[in-house]
């Protein structure tokens, strides 16, 4: 049976179709989030890729910032539980999951069955979130997806405040004005995010294996900075960006099984 999971974030919409909670049949990522046509595009795209229609879907679960707005999903779950389930599917040995989303950064402690045991989230401030990185990339005039490779060329990362996006933006402008190397600034930005997130990880307790979830995990510079801050290696699955949607599709499958239909 096919189940669908959709992760409607603040900056992107990711959808996954799974068969029997085991196999990923199709996936789509659209760089438009809640309140846009992104969720609908991601939905249409994933059905097309899976070569199925809406009637073929046995159950759907929505997650992410826009989870309450998804009409066809039978229920919604927080992205916390969905990332826990999704990463457990991708990396079964993971016990600590770091997810840097558009508006939230979170660290999850998960059990051996992928169940959410504990979590810590950022406060209302945007520092340490995906939005922070977007703002900084704009100031540097660098594409967000190029930030990682750029920062890997750094020789002497600069120091950037990790307490406030607005202050950090001013700092970056000031560093640019003083002709600091752009790679060093990018690495400083990543270190700033890593320090913020590492604080949360220390609160939850960084049980091995530590994995990263979400689109920001594709940024090698952030992963490296986090590994240095946490003094541990971090596992990143190629499907890390889809983890929330995978978790949602699995939750839909678990519900079907509980009802005895699967």
């Amino acid at each position, binding site marked *: 049976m096919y189940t669908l999971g959709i992760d409607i974030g603040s900056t992107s919409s990711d959808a996954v179709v799974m068969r029997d909670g085991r196999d990923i049949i199709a996936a789509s990522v659209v760089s438009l989030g809640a309140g846009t046509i992104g969720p609908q595009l991601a939905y249409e795209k994933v059905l097309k890729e899976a070569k199925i229609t809406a009637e073929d879907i046995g159950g759907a679960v929505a997650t992410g*910032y826009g989870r*309450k707005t998804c009409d066809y*999903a*039978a*229920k*919604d*779950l*927080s*992205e*916390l*539980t969905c990332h826990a389930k999704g990463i457990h599917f991708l990396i079964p040995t993971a016990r600590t999951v770091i997810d840097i989303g558009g*508006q*939230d950064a979170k660290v999850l402690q998960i*059990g051996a069955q992928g*169940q*959410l*045991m*504990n*979590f810590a*989230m950022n*406060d*209302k401030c945007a520092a340490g979130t995906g939005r922070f990185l977007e703002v900084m990339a704009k100031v540097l005039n660098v594409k967000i997806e190029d930030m990682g490779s750029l920062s890997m060329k750094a020789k002497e990362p600069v120091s950037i405040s990790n307490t406030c996006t607005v202050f950090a933006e001013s700092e970056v402008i000031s560093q640019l004005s003083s002709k600091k190397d752009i790679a060093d600034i990018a690495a400083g930005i990543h270190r700033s995010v890593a320090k913020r997130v590492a604080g949360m990880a220390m*609160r939850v307790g960084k049980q091995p294996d530590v994995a990263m979830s979400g689109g920001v995990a594709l940024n090698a510079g952030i992963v490296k900075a986090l590994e240095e801050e946490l003094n541990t290696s971090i596992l990143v699955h190629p499907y890390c960006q889809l983890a929330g949607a995978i978790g949602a599709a699995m939750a839909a499958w678990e*519900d079907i099984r*509980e*009802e005895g239909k699967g």
Partner: protein
Amino acid sequence: MSENNKATEQAAPAKPKRPKPKSMIMLNEQTAALAENTRKAKEKGEKIGWSTSIFPQEIPEALGLYIQYPENVGAGIAARKQADPYLQTAEGPLEYNNDICSYAKINLAYAEAMNEGGTLVMPDFLLVANNICNQVTKWFENLSKTLNIPLFMIDTCYNSEDYVTESRVKYIRSQLDQCIKDLCEFTGKEWDEKRFIEVMDISAKNKELWIRANELLANEPAPMNGFELFNYMSTMVCNRGKASTTEILTQLNNEIDEHLKNGTSTYPVEQQYRIFWDGIACWPYLGHNLRTLKQYGINMVGSGYVKAWALDYESNDLDGMAKAYSYCPANNNNMSTFIKRRADAIKQFNCDGVIFHINRACKVMDCQQLEAHRRISEITGVPYVGFDGDQADYRNFSEAQFETRIQGLVEVMKARKEAQNNG
């Protein structure tokens, strides 16, 4: 399917609104009477006072003085979503910093620029006890200077030990004695020892009734929606030494007893999770917070906030009163006392989780709360979540962030319950 099944939500018929219980009607009458009586007293030339919320009210009550409580009024303004013009005035023309206490911002704007036709009658004197925080001292000093009126203060000290030292009891006691003299001199009222003892007796009775009402929520299922205690709390803040409060709280206890007898509750849906709420209510979003919790069957059965007004001392024991006002569950006690009180309550009320309101208005509370999260969770083994909010400044809260955190907490509580049930 789980508790957040959308189809079930949509199919549920709208429930008729529950009529207000008699105790709530009595509470509203008492609130209106305090405002009206204070207004009339002012018209007759009586001296009116404004007080911080945990001041030794027994003294002004024994003197027959009319006292109003700006924090309580600020909470009401915020809950009715009327705070914006006050906040804008405080931060604009009055040039107060955005970071100060939001109750202070509302009240300073009220006092200095916006008091026409308001609930608070403009004061002739001020009463301050700094057990709740030190910012009230500066807030009331500013009022004193701007309005050119005297301020009577009880410095309740910070307890770095887990108890109130003998020297502090003596220091606070001497201030109580002096306050009585100073207030008599300023207001022209005569001190009546017999009336003072009577007020202390009433206050003690009210304290007992208030604690009892709170502790009845330890029953499972709880006979009451815990958020309702946030409303009843105003009788303890504003009228703690009055006989009318005894009547309200007796009625409230009777109503709760009746629910227990009948196996009913004022909580509107099935209670699935019991939580402890730490920190002041997020007044501008009280309805939203309650709706979000209700969606998952979460009832707030315990709170560190509402019991702050259960001042515990023997009648006619002024040393005991000094100690009680220093050791009450406010913000002048050390970390270990802070943690022990919460950990004990979480166990007493058999809570499944804890919600910490990281109240941006109350820096002193936030300062120790973050470390307390970790230690309380270690002691109790109960999961927790913290959310950013503000007691009265609506700009410091995000509904979506609150909802995600609560849903996450529910998912953790659910997983733990399932793990327990499966051995």
